[in-house]
């Protein structure tokens, strides 16, 4: 029993460490993103034109541009180190973007410039993946059901809107950053950036509708600094 418990604990510890394996010891910046003002009401998406996707959803799917939670918390915000981040090779693992039931998973995908990007189609319908890059090159590729993942890489930092022209309600973002220290918030608005060596950092929060906000923070050791962001909700 004792052995079993310690094995389980080990497994838990490994699991807990796994996501941050890329960033070893160091300081942490953590906090919450909230909004002030009245956010626009998101409308349910009508997928009637794509029956194979429409019947996969029992409750109406909402537009994910503005996702909020309790206490005015804000989701789909990219929080990242925009200046001062230690240089390093981009993560070896690919950032994956999935098309499932005519939705993008995730709605906002953060990746480091130069990191491999893998795009999958889990649907029974053809999609076209059309990232509307301006700094990087724009491309537009079809991906019928059952075709292998599309692989791509972006070399320059840019927030790239992504859309599917066949299914106009499908839109999302690729956040190509100069750092792997990033987190896209869930609807609880929480983020945590760990493994930061001592130094002065600029932390930026980006939201597709509510814009960006930056703050500075200094890390001296292995402490956890608290940094909250409050974005101003705009109607359009």
């Amino acid at each position, binding site marked *: 029993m004792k052995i079993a418990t310690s094995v389980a604990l080990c497994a838990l510890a490994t699991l807990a460490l796994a996501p941050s394996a890329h960033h070893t010891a160091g300081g942490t910046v953590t906090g919450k993103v909230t909004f002030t003002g009245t956010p626009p009401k998101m409308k349910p998406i009508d997928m009637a034109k794509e029956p194979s996707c429409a019947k996969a959803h029992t409750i109406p799917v909402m537009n994910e541009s503005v996702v909020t939670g309790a206490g005015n918390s804000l989701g789909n915000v990219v929080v990242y180190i925009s200046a001062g981040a230690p240089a390093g090779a981009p993560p070896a693992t690919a950032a994956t973007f999935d098309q499932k039931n005519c939705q993008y998973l995730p709605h906002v995908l953060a990746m480091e410039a130069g990191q491999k990007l893998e795009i999958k189609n889990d649907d029974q319908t053809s999609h076209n993946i059309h990232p509307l890059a301006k700094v990087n*090159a*724009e491309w*537009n590729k*079809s991906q019928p059901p059952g075709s292998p993942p599309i692989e791509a890489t972006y070399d320059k930092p840019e927030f790239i809107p992504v859309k599917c*022209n066949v299914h106009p309600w499908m839109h999302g973002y690729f956040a190509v950053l100069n750092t792997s220290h990033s987190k896209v918030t869930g609807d609880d608005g929480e983020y945590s950036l760990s493994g930061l060596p001592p130094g002065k950092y600029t932390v930026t929060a980006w939201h597709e509708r509510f814009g960006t906000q930056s703050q500075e923070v200094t890390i001296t050791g292995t402490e956890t600094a608290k940094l909250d962001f409050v974005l101003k909700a705009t109607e359009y």
Partner: protein
Amino acid sequence: MSRVARRIASIAALAVLTVVAFANGDAQTMHGLPREGRGADTMPNKRVGRPSVGKEEYTRYCAGCHGDRGDGMGENTQWIDPKPRDFTQATFKCRSTPSGTLPTDQDIINTIRRGIVNSNMPQWRPLPDQMQADLLSYIKTFSPRWKSEKPGTPVVIPAETPVTTESILRGREMFQKFECWKCHGTEGRGDGPSAAALTDSKDQPIHPFDFTSGTRFKCGTTNADLYRIFMTGLDGTPMASFVDNIKGDQGWDLVHYLRTLQPIRTPESTLWKTWLATHAAELKPIGPESGSR
């Protein structure tokens, strides 16, 4: 009407006529298609361009629409649709190269020569080769991509396979399977379920190609041009690239089917009409209820 005003009016009328003649010079007739090699559009231009000379030509011929800065914001832009190309993005519709890569020099020369049908971009074929090359070299100064990147490797177009009923039928299945009908419509009329909401990369409304209109394609007239269009896609528009999903000779099957949708006499349409006369009942309709035979 004063003499001066009459004179201005007649000059204006002449200008309009010239533009119309320009635009129709190479119209696909109802009685056959120009085949590869017939026109001068794709003849190699081997001249070396001089950007400083090209700038003068550009200011004279192109800036009115494409703008002094090459950003597609010339003084005429607000009046015309589709909007002129923004050269600062180096994104081009008509390419022989994969989606997202720069076109070859010849790709752009071909576009300058043939113009873009159903737009305000006329054919510039009468310009001498040297002038076309000068213009090209100046257009390439608008985006830094031309310094840091090389054009993509052109998509290989294999020798055309024979036009047969079987080939057309296989192409028809591809039209269904790859869901071309979602935008281009079940009969190729450009009226599919996704057609109405389409926008280009600058958020301007855009229509899918209507095969039944009988006009040329934007990027050429031949079967090889048609093959190239769906393989490379038209960057900056909703038309995606299919080169990852359609391989080699398969592409010719789709070309042969697409030709049957056009109201022009082609080997494909003649064969298809004959076959349909006795076999129409065997076909399932194209569309959401699966149209493969």
